[in-house]
């Protein structure tokens, strides 16, 4: 696990998948990015990140949920794997520890 480092964009996607489960697929993720984080991202880049994360084994996917608005096409629904959850959790713990050690001076220094 220590060897796997993921980018912050990948981290965000993992977290969003966790939030949106079981309805996490590319388009909902894109909308969520827009609404929650105010970030405009193309479907293509979300797809790429999802594809990569699945290759890493941090996400798993199933096909399903055909709807008329999709022109009768099914969705690829994503779920966090245990490994995926551990990765984001580790990041959280690490960040938390770092934040606890942060002195106010240094904090102000950055602003």
């Amino acid at each position, binding site marked *: 696990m220590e060897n796997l480092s993921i980018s912050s964009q990948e981290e965000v996607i993992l977290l969003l998948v966790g939030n949106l489960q079981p309805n996490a*697929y*590319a*388009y909902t993720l*894109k909308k969520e990015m827009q609404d929650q984080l105010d970030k405009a991202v*193309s*479907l*293509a*880049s979300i*797809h*790429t990140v999802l*594809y990569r994360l699945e290759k890493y084994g941090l996400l798993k996917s199933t*096909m399903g949920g055909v*709807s*008329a*608005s*999709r*022109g*009768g*096409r*099914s*969705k*690829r629904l994503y779920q966090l794997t245990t490994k995926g959850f551990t990765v984001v959790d580790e990041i959280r713990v690490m960040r938390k520890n770092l934040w606890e050690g942060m002195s106010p001076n240094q904090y102000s220094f950055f602003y």
Partner: protein
Amino acid sequence: MSKDSTSPGWAKRLSKRLFHWFASESWHDEILGDLEEQYQDQLSYRKKWKADMYFLFEVLLFIRPHILKKKRKNTTFMLTRNHIKISYRNLLKNKVYTFINVLGLALGLTTCILIYLFVSYDTSYDEFQDKNTYRMWINRVYPEREVNYPVVPHSFGPQLVEDFPEIEAQGRCFKAGNPTNVQVGDNFYLEDDFIFADSTFLSILNFKMVSGNRATALDDANSVVLSATTAKKLFGNEDPMGKTIEFFGGSKKVTAVIEDYPYNSHFSFKYLTPLHQFPFYGQINFVGFSAMTYIRLREGTDPKVVEAKLPAFVKKYAEGPIQQRNGISYDEYIAAGNGYNYHLHQVKDIHLHSNLENELKANGNINYIYIFSAIAVFILIIACINFMNLSTARSTERGKEVGVRKVLGSAKGQLITQFLTESVMLTLISLLLALLVAALVLPSFSQLAERPLSIFQLVNPVAIGAGLLVVLTTGILAGLYPAFFISSFQPLSVLKGQLKHSKGGSALRNGLVVMQFAISIALISATLIVFDQMDYMINKPLGFDKEQVVVIENANSIDGNQAFNLDKFITFRNEIDRLPGVQMSGYTSNMPGDQVFDFVARVPGTDQKESMIMRRMFFDDQIQQTLNMELLEGRYFSQSFNDTLSIMLNQSAVQKLGIKDPIGKKLLQIAANNDPIEYTIVGVVDDFHFQSLHVDLKPAAFTYTGGPNAIINKLAVKTDGNYEEALSHIEATWNKFVPGLPFKSYFLDSDMEQFYKAERATGKIFGIFTFLAILIACIGVRGLSAFIINHRVKEIGVRKVLGASIAQIMVLLSKDFVKLILLSAVISIPLAYYFMSNWLDNFAYAVEINWLIFLLAGGISLLIGVGIVCFQTVKAALANPVKSLRDE
């Protein structure tokens, strides 16, 4: 798809089709679904065309590797990978063939790379100089000979600038002839490469100043400018600026330090010190050759125009002095067969395009550049053709593979790519190997070539482009023949083994063998002749003994650089003579091999225009016996006579002057600015070679070291042969006489060999190329014979069954090769003879070309060629005929 609530716009339809075209099937559902959902959402708050455009935009962003159709892999990409893999396996399967083929081409390329480095280095000489800088040189014509010097009268430079507006500036220099003692504090260094130069000199040639002012550094007569290395040597890490060093009996202040002069220049220096410290250079002189003169022309000036004005200029200023010296008018003097033809040459042309005496450094020779380039091209052609030939020969054996591929549905294009991939791969490997080998042998090669060559000279667009072009062309051509020839066969006939070989190919192959052997034989003969000539020059009797002679190079320091005092020298010599292991010693101004002064003389009573230019050396009373020169008439110099105004001549001088019974006759020395000096002839010595054997023997005069203007430079010591012991005694005596001054000596015989350094290097380089050419030819022959034998395997089998012996089969198969090699000998020997007799014309004393050399060269080639063929044949001949006959 038509379930869309609104009919889709063109952008959406187009992008959908686009997506279908590029995206892999497995992605279609989810991605198009997402896109569609987004599109529908957007319709609620966006104009339709905007949503359409957005759709297109999103689709375009999906053009990413993992989305693309993998089907593409099944065509070109997959095939290429497959080709590389199959090529790799094929090459491994035939390791010997691959090795030989790659090695042959790599050797050829290595040779080319080395020659390219050599040639590009030599043609880079003085490229960094200003293109408007020219040097004057003179073609001096005497009634009986011509000389070309880079040294011209020193008043020319300043006068030219004054008279011609198109000449912007001038700078003059000359080089000190002998090593000099340099004193820094209490340390002495024996140094050479002293250049005396004008104050303007630093702005004429391209110098890179480390410190000091270019314009003023040489203004003061007691200043000196050091090269960076010299500064480091004398002062270590201290700042040399303003420090004082002593030489030529005076203190000089360091006024500038200059970066070491690039090696690829005709110019080099360690010390630069002002010319005007010599009063001589303040006197007017338009006749005697005393300084190298560089001029800078104004931008856009045609040097031819300036050159055309020189004769009138020379006449204007030199007429008077020449008339005065010779006693006849200038025009009469010229009409008598004399001439002063001054010329200009661009500084960058000095190294390769001029061949003058008394240069600062030995010049290169453009002919060697041409010859080497030609050799490189030939070797490259041979190597490339060999490569193509071998690949072609090998590929016919792969008919079955081609047949199977075709049966399995391989298109012709794919087969062509297969063969091309394979041969291009091989050529690229060869190129890499060649670069590696070249880089590895470069240190030894640069030592041999005496040039600091670097593999990084290859890093320029021309070299890289040419290299890739040659390699790719070779690869493609080598692959083309099998690619088109074999792949055009019907698979059935190929599988049945009915692959026919074209007749036209054999003429080409034979021509190739002839060409390679012709080149090999020519190169072998050339190398043998070069070494023969070297041997001859080193062993030719020179008219004096060079063995067992130690020369003290800086014997001139014996009197401590004070006013010339012969007695001091004699005292030292007497000490040396008494040392154990020393037979005799003698002083001279010039040892054989040194630059020799000119001496203009005539017999009294003859016409002024009869004066002759001779060479002149100062001899003491023992030097001739020390070097064992033969006395023909009269006597040597002696301390029991007053020899101040005595002179000895060599035999050539006596003949050229036309003196009968020379002993006791008078001879007048004509001096440029003084009255003639009258000498009495006391002896005649046999001719001896005081210069290299490149030049003819010249008339020479020898005057006594006790005479007017005498100079002593060196002491020659004849030893018993025990150098070590004698040298240590001599050095001890030296240290007793002049403590602290460095002692420098050399052995005469090894010094004389230095004359032929350039030839020796050329010879060795030739030898290497010869070896490579032979090796490449061997590789070619080996491949070809294997090919030919392969296709006569059945014939051999039948012959064996019918009772032929192995010897008969070997004769049968090598007969053709012998014919080809003989043919190449017939072609190459006249060519080699022609070129080598031209080369030998460079030497006044040359060997006769020995016909045995050609016999030997031809013999060697025949032996190697037939040897290789026989080796291959034996294998074929020994094989059980059943095997070759059964294979159907």
